[in-house]
């Protein structure tokens, strides 16, 4: 198929950016979206134009490094990561607009690459269970009911890609935050730090410039791992509990 690509290009964080238009022929429907961009980059390199910078690593939908707003949707039209989106989701002659994640808290590094280190700093504020290596009891010392273990797993599948933020009109990271709060809060091991965790992580979230949640739900619709919206209820519940406990 033949495509008309409108792609955001920006030299660095401070330079002005803009949409550039490229034509690409012979795109196969078996290509992944990023393989399509690889082919475009080969073409640009041959023509003497610098290839387009974009993030990707595992290309199997698990590392969370790839991003991209595709026609205004985070990770494009399917419920998956950009690297797992395939060109069979598009048609010959399509015009596709490709932009970086859009959020104040994710500044642009170059072209389609953004800086998501704010997520690491949120995790630093309590997104863990404090146990030094070697200090753990036997793994069977504490049984975990299967439904709680499953729930913890389901929300722990968050890949930290930032699609929830990019999709949210407020640029809120509440889904990301709620997923981690729920993951650790479901487990007996996570109870000791439950109150301080939620207060500190939300504090960092706000300090990073992410917006507040107004229950729009775009985040969960865009999430490639289908993290459910109710983790945000859990986040708020835990926050209220922590405040009641005087944290």
């Amino acid at each position: 198929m033949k495509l008309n690509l409108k792609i955001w290009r920006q030299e660095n964080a401070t330079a002005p950016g803009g949409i550039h238009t490229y034509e690409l022929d012979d795109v196969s429907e078996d290509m992944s979206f990023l393989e399509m961009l690889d082919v475009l980059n080969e073409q640009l390199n041959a023509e003497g134009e610098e290839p387009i910078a974009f993030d990707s690593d595992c290309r199997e939908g698990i590392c969370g490094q790839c991003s991209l707003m595709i026609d205004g949707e985070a990770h494009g039209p399917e419920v998956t990561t950009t690297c797992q989106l395939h060109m069979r989701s598009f048609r010959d002659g399509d015009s596709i607009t490709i932009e970086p994640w859009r959020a104040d808290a994710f500044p642009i590094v170059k072209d389609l690459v953004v800086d998501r280190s704010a997520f690491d700093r949120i995790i630093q504020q309590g997104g863990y269970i404090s146990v030094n290596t070697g200090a753990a009891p036997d793994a069977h010392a504490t049984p975990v009911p299967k439904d709680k273990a499953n729930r913890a797993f389901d929300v722990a599948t968050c890949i930290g890609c930032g699609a929830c933020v990019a999709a949210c009109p407020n640029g809120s990271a509440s889904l990301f935050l709620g997923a981690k709060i729920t993951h650790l809060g479901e487990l007996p091991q996570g109870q000791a730090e439950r109150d301080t965790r939620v207060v500190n992580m939300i504090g960092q979230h706000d300090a990073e410039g992410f917006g507040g949640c107004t229950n729009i739900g775009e985040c969960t619709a865009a999430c490639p791992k289908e993290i459910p919206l109710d983790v945000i209820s859990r986040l708020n519940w835990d926050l209220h509990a922590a405040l009641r406990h005087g944290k």
Partner: protein
Amino acid sequence: MTDLPDTTNSFDSSRTLDAAALAEREGAQQTDDAADYYVDGDPIQDTKAPGGPLEERWNTRQFEARIANPANRRRLSVIVVGTGLAGASAAATLGEAGYVVKSFCYQDSPRRAHSIAAQGGINAAKNYKGDGDSVYRLFYDTIKGGDYRSRESNVYRLAQVSTSIIDQCVAQGVPFAREYGGLLDNRSFGGVQVSRTFYARGQTGQQLLIGAYQALERQVAAGTVKCYTRHEMVELIVVDGRARGIIVRDMVTGEIETYFADVVVLASGGYGNVFFLSTNAMGCNVTAAWRAHRKGALMANPCYTQIHPTCIPVAGAHQSKLTLMSESLRNDGRIWVPKNQADCGKDPREIPEEDRDYYLERIYPAFGNLVPRDIASRQAKNMCDEGRGVGPEVDGVRRGVYLDFAEAIDRLGRKAIEDKYDNLFDMYARITGEDPYTSPMRIYPAVHYVMGGLWVDYDLQSTIPGLFVTGEANFSDHGANRLGASALMQGLADGYFVLPNTIRDYLAEGPFEKIAEDDPAVVEAQQSVKSRIEQFMTTNGTRSVDSYHRELGHIMWEYCGMERSEDGLRKAIDLIRSLKEDFWRNVRVLGSAESMNQSLEKAGRVADFFELGELMCIDALNRRESCGGHFRAESQTEEGEALRHDDQYAYVAAWEWGGADEKPILHKEHLTYEFVEMKQRSYK
């Protein structure tokens, strides 16, 4: 080299051979396949593993290894390169112990390292199922699975610490699969007859890595670890014979930065991307390890490559990577091809039972579809070479076999299969556009893991004092082949439990003398980094880096892949050499070195892959036997099974860098088995 600390091994990297000795050694090797390509060096040995009863050795070493005074630790600095399981766990644990840790990764966050993509599970000798598992059995299975090419002491230790890993991860909140009683579930995995594999659906690597990542971020908050993301190590700094720092390129600004420490840990992963197409992430590379190799660290058994049998077949020329389907699928899926070539293009559902060849069940009735990875891979290749492959023709050959769940869905119900594998089935459907619940999957082998890596002693220290290597980047525990669900085990064993207990012996001598910024070794290293980048930016040729990488990968897959032969390997070496020459003359890297430049990043990695690829071929040429992941066409039984030659090759081949355009030097570490009897492997 002077003032070698007494903790170093017996290998002396400053040794030089005089010309006569070289000629004599070369003469002695004339009958070897690889004689023209290398120089014979002195044997080496691991001097750190204690003797005595196997089960006491690790305790002995932990006791004998000195302890760095707790008050001193905040003056002792450690650099850790890589944030996968082996790197993040090491950095976190060393931070907890109070050392000053700097952690580096090329990704935009430590959480993205490629350990995250491991699907199947992690082994541990917990014997929670009461099915006869034990530390000794895990040890024995690992030695046997490695085809008797690993060290008994190392492997026993790995099995011993495996149980602590599970405890640690559960305490961190890793959501392993559980039974209704709330206890942990296990499954059997990859050619093993006990259920010792712990798992988190098909995303075990992700969950373990998130656990290690969170432990790491906790230390960042505590101020013991500083993380440098989007920083790629491009050189090792060796001063007075000790590893004392690294040079990195800030991938955002392009700045070349120098960091010093008392000790450097490489946890930089494997080099499967030398094949271009592999299941590795796009950025996985050998550069950190190769730079260390060029500075004197030996590279051991580079030809030992694991080809994973259950990957999604290549779809076309645009392919950028291959996707693995966890081999846990082999527990329930049955592998087959049509008996008749005429059926290969048909809809598989229309091929009747009697016209299907369940070839693994036929050839290996005891293990069936659960034979080790190398056997499953090679048999798939054999079936396709016979013309019985399935799926679309690529370059005139159908390269795929069926992995069929119809019988399992009948027996267990669709729901049970969904519970076990839904994410894998979804991934398959997304990539291929086919539904594996109603039609069999198509699979084909792909490069997945490398057992080879930098040579380390029992302490995980390389031949450069102060340079330690963990995880897939070292060669230590898997011998010639790795069992399923053992990579995660080794990464975390190294990072959480082994390295922190051995590195302290080295650090007990520190802090070492501060290094001057203008030390000649530092200046030289910085200069070489800058001039290499300069060369890439000014060559201004006509071919992209990717095009070279793709061609190199094709050579490697063709001649140093599932089956290697003398003629093929010689041809590969010639092809690699001429392609490398062309690369340096004709590569095109556009843009600027002073900003993010993904072509430039790739150019540095591919340049190192050329040198590694050549060494892999030489190593494969030298090893005229078939063992584990290395199959030499010249060494097989009449039935076409791998044939080892323990009398000639029961050694670790540890290669010393001989210099650019010079021959590498082979040091042999002979393997002795005190506890396990070496047997020719049989899965029939």
